[in-house]
């Protein structure tokens, strides 16, 4: 919700991230593989898988010994 202008508010300095970078963690994928459209899920499967394209399925799996998502 927007509460209007807050006096004394200073924007976060983008040069000083709140969390230190953690090696080995993938936060986002800024590119996708070059695709050829040959196979496609059914619309219902696509919604479940998060993509229409079988070759782009990249499930986030829980790592057993780290307790986090990677």
């Amino acid at each position, binding site marked *: 919700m927007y509460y209007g202008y807050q006096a004394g508010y200073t924007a976060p300095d983008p040069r000083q991230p709140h969390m230190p970078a953690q090696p080995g963690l993938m936060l986002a994928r800024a590119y996708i593989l070059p695709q050829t*459209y040959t196979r496609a899920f*059914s*619309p*219902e499967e*696509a*919604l479940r898988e998060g*993509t229409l394209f079988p070759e782009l399925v990249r499930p986030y799996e829980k790592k057993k010994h780290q307790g986090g998502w990677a």
Partner: protein
Amino acid sequence: MRKDQREMILDRIRAYEFAAAELNLYLDSHPGDKRAINDFNTFVKQIEALKKEYERLYGPLLNFGFGPNADQNRWQWIDDPWPWESY
């Protein structure tokens, strides 16, 4: 809980809209892919048919700009349930 017919049509609309959005993004970078265009158009037709079917059975999905008010005598948008509500 068993899904009723209304929920099932909504689920199909969601699934087909997602598939169309996926092909929309794919076609942005592969604008000459005829098979993708053909499938996109199939999905769009399916979405239109599903929405018409939903509105015929359960009333309007949106308040305006999408479907006519099917009942000549009563404004249906105020009828329960709204598309995002359960019975």
